[in-house]
């Protein structure tokens, strides 16, 4: 599925609207991270990934491992927009009987590769999948690992990064959502992460940095990662938490809370206006 940059912009906007509506319905969940990652997920599911929503277990697929499971609304919305399941089901997020659990579960919904929630576990699993592909000399498939920045505080991340560096897993692309916030505040206050670039380079990774809201730059970075041999690649994507919803942008208080009815109304109006702006940009 390869959409044009303009079509991807629409998809990102659709995904953002889905996220706001889902969170409103659910009454709990994370807002900032999913909104901030909507552009990256739109690029992945509508341009970068080799996948088939009708055949989610297709052996030749690229695998996307969401390690920071708490931003799953953006994953669910992307999967629904891509056609893995009906968009109506998004309303069931976090409700009794749902397939859209508060954190993703590989056995409950098509298109979900792993169960995640406890941070850093996806890093090792993605590395394991990439290693399996490498063992079997499957050169055309890739593994995409999505991590949050706060997640980099987990020791297991660095165990996995060390492993991938040792085995030169160039079929692995990691994307870090560098939005500078976590539950208790700004990452550099809670537990400083910088210099992330130097840290990854020291572990024998190829490091790229992009504006996480520039669709062309995201896609270009993913293409560059594919062209790098001998090293895994990490894309440090600088994002604005809550992107697209003015009153959420950059505020860590929105890390773990959903909008109420009034707030959701304002947010959706704003997102529809932004959609209109995409239209005018085209013309």
């Amino acid at each position: 599925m390869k959409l044009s940059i303009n079509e991807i912009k629409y998809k990102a906007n659709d995904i953002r609207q889905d996220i706001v509506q889902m969170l409103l319905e659910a009454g709990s969940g994370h807002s900032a991270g999913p909104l901030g990652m909507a552009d990256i997920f739109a690029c992945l599911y509508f341009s970068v990934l080799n996948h088939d929503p009708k055949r989610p277990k297709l052996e030749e697929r690229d695998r996307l491992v969401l390690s920071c499971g708490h931003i799953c609304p953006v994953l669910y919305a992307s999967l629904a927009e891509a056609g893995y399941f009906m968009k109506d089901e998004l309303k069931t997020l976090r409700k009794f009987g749902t397939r859209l659990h508060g954190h993703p579960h590989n056995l409950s919904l098509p298109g979900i590769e792993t169960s995640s929630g406890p941070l850093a576990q996806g890093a090792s699993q993605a590395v394991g999948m990439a290693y399996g592909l490498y063992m079997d000399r499957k050169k055309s498939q890739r593994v995409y690992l999505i991590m949050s920045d706060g997640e980099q505080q987990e020791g297991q991340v660095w165990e996995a990064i060390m492993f991938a560096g040792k085995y030169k897993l160039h079929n692995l692309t990691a994307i870090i959502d560098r939005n500078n916030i976590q539950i208790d505040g700004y990452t550099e206050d809670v537990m400083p992460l910088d210099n992330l670039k130097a840290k990854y380079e020291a572990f024998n990774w190829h490091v790229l940095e992009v504006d996480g809201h520039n669709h062309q730059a995201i896609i270009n970075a993913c293409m560059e990662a594919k062209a790098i041999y001998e090293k895994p690649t990490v894309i440090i994507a600088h994002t604005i938490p809550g992107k697209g919803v003015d009153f959420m942008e950059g505020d860590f208080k929105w890390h773990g809370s959903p909008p109420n009815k009034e707030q959701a109304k304002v947010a959706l109006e704003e997102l529809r206006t932004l959609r209109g702006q995409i239209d005018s940009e085209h013309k």
Partner: protein
Amino acid sequence: MTYLNPKIGNSDIEQEPTRKGYGLGLLDLAAIDENVVVLTADLAESTMVLDFAKKYPERFVECGVAEQNMMGVAAGLALYGKVPFVSSYATFSPGRNWDQLRVSVCYSMANVKIAGAHTGVTVGPDGATHQALEDVAITRVLPNLTVVVPCDALEARKATVALGKMAGPAYFRLGRSKTPIITTNSSSFTVGKAEVFKDGSDVVIIGSGPVLYNALVAAAEMEKENVSCMVINNHTIKPIDSETIIEAAKKCKAVVTVEEHQTMAGCGSAVCEVLAQNFPVPVEMVGMPNSFGESGQPEELIEKYCMGIKSIKAAIRKVISRKNSK
């Protein structure tokens, strides 16, 4: 009933560590399943996976001293289609990487097999830090996970092959020291099916692991006091063979559980859960008495921590007196 080694009770009985059975089982399995891969965290030699590593270097994954990542990598490999065996000491795996076992493996139903070596006080000189006495407790509470405790090297070899052929996550427990070969090549082993090692009618000893040898010797010695002891090898702690346990309790009406593990939440507790809900009878539990171990020789530690023949006989006498005083 299972045919056992005729040398039981003799000082010249053959002895091998159960971890050796694991290493041999891996070779058996690798020959028939090319998806079998082995991971270790810098413990290839002492978990006895070196022969596998030499024979199948492309299927051997050295993870370095990083057990959390090793469990996750194994989960990733399993979700991709491999059959990974995670090899380390049980104190580290599943001790240190329990969260990864819980979510990446059990919740996700990743087909990972975890071999926990160096369990029990028979680890000996390395001391308390390396003597896993809680591993059965922390694994048997996890949904989707099969938990097996082989009683000797032959059974460990069979268990390795059986668990490798079975779909779904499994933990199995291994020992460091040489322990008597209780079973024979022809002894049967089926995951989830307890084996009656010896029939009897006054008391049933239900246990798991190499310490069952002490139970068999104690049972033989009690015969001289006219106490008829049944002995059951409850090698699969989960899913537990309730039927065999209830049947034995109905026949003997007194139970002694034996294990080289904390008495809390291990094999004995699993047996008590079955009995309390189905056929309550007096139970005495032999195992690690809520304590950490220490350095020493295996046999010294087994005696000190009340898992020797004498302690088992004392438990048998006590449970029979409780049964008779009812």
